[in-house]
């Protein structure tokens, strides 16, 4: 009996407070319909209370965001001229003094509480949503998959080799909210009806868990894009590609471009893995050595296992790069991989006298 009363009383108090909070949320956090004026031209009516990034997405305006709205990538910048409220401490690290002057904000941090007047860079309007079907899922290594997505009949996508798209991960299992995650396109830019992605498993990752454990061939999937300014610059400098893990994707797309357009710049691709079981696409890359006039592929293992029978380069990718490139050469570098690898590589490249404006990278 005592147990019953105790439970009842505690539950009653809990229910009362929960009810109170639900009511408060309904009435206090209801901002009604807010008007968003975009570039002084179009007006959208949006239900208030959500973040600007997501609110715009509902109206098919896609602002680039690699982190999916967590405020860690700093890509989703738009200028909020009126109604954005004060700049938040979560935004300041990603904005330059000049951007702050011009009212730039991170759209994932700005909440729509009232009418807004915003400016979105014109080029972002070419970004749109695509519906696709999974044509093929192929294992590249024990933790990396090659995903081919075919666009719906009659649809085509225009992107530049090196750019990325954002995959929409629907709700599944315990994941109750749609999320977007950025992946670089690995297929050639001339193939307009299909995009390929290289996806490496992140333990407990919302997106990669979905791709690895739930997604099957034939499933429908939505993505938007293309985004990013990681693409091949047009000049005659010698190219250094550096990638680790699934960072091979955009480099592969760039190599397709070089092969198709017969670009005869000297190019070397340093691909870093831990051991033989992480290495993939070696044959494809060797094939590029025949198709791209002056291309060389240098795979490197940092920790080869005895049964790998590894004959190639050993050591961290930074050490291998350091051994291969000359001081003060006319280089241009394209890097794709984890922040740690990229930061370390930039250090090495700079020590070789390569100026910062000739180093391009895509961190994930």
């Amino acid at each position, binding site marked *: 009996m005592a147990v019953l*009363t*105790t439970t009842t009383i*505690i539950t009653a108090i809990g229910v009362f*407070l929960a009810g109170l909070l639900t009511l408060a949320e309904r009435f206090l956090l209801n901002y009604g319909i807010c008007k968003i004026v975009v570039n002084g031209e179009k007006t959208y009516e949006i239900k208030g209370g959500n973040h600007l990034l997501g609110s715009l997405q509902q109206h098919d305006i896609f602002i680039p965001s690699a982190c999916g709205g967590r405020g860690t990538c700093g890509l989703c910048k738009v200028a909020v001229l009126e109604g954005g409220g*004060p700049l938040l401490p979560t935004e300041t690290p990603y904005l330059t003094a000049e951007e702050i002057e011009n009212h730039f904000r991170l759209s994932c941090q700005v909440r729509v509480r009232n009418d807004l007047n915003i400016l979105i860079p014109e080029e972002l309007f070419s970004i749109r949503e695509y519906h696709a079907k999974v044509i093929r899922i192929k294992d590249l290594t024990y933790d990396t998959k090659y995903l081919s997505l075919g666009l719906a009949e009659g649809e085509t996508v225009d992107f530049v080799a090196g750019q990325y798209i954002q995959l929409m991960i629907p709700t599944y299992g315990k994941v109750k909210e749609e999320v977007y995650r950025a992946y670089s396109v690995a297929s050639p830019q001339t193939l307009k009806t299909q995009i390929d992605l290289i996806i490496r498993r992140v333990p407990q990752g919302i997106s990669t868990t979905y791709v690895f454990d739930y997604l099957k061939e034939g499933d429908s999937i939505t993505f938007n894009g293309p985004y990013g300014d990681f693409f091949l610059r047009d000049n005659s400098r010698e190219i250094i590609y550096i990638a680790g893990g699934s960072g091979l994707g955009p480099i592969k797309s760039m190599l397709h471009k070089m092969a198709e357009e017969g670009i005869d710049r000297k190019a070397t691709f340093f691909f870093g893995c831990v051991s033989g079981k992480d290495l993939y696409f070696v044959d494809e890359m060797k094939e590029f050595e025949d198709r791209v006039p002056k291309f060389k592929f240098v795979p490197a293992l940092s920790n080869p296992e005895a049964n790998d029978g590894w004959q190639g380069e050993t050591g961290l990718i930074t050490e291998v790069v350091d051994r291969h490139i000359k001081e003060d050469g006319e280089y241009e570098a394209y890097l794709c991989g984890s922040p740690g690898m990229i930061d370390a590589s930039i250090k090495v490249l700079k020590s070789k006298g390569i100026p910062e404006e000739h180093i391009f990278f895509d961190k994930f």
Partner: protein
Amino acid sequence: MDINPIVIFFASISTSNIVLTNFLGMCSYLSISRDLKASWGLGQAVIFVMTTTTMLNFLVYKYILVPAGLEYLRYIVFIIIVAAFVQLIEMILERYMTNLYYALGIFLPLITVNCAILGVALFMVIREYTFLQSLAYGAGGGIGWALAIVALAGIREKVDETKIPKGLQGAGFALIVTGIMAMAFIGLSGIANIQ
């Protein structure tokens, strides 16, 4: 325990100040006291939360927990009530006082774990206060806390312009100032005393 509520009110602001005599609620007291404006904002929030939750906690304790013989659950119940109220205040601020909401930022949810608030509710039980006494104690405790943090923030803003030895910067200096302030408040003990 028939102390006049007015005496309790003034005593809990001055001589029985919850920060300066019990050293409760120190985390937000030290971390928010760098800026006068934000500390006054947090002080207002604490005054409101402390007054309302003390009343609520008193009612729940006296009319629900005691009759049901569940006094031993008071820690949990008090904490749930405080947590829910802080959520409510956060929503109210977000809606009507957006600037204050941004100024407080992460520290508003910290009121939930502000031990001064739970401390006041528990002292109220230990000292067997009546409703009016509890109300006076809650409001006085909140005002006392706000007074202490605003005083500290004022001092820290002035001190920012002077040179402090490196090892004493930040919390070290704030604690020394707090100690001196606590001694100064003892000087008021002739006004009212409840302990």
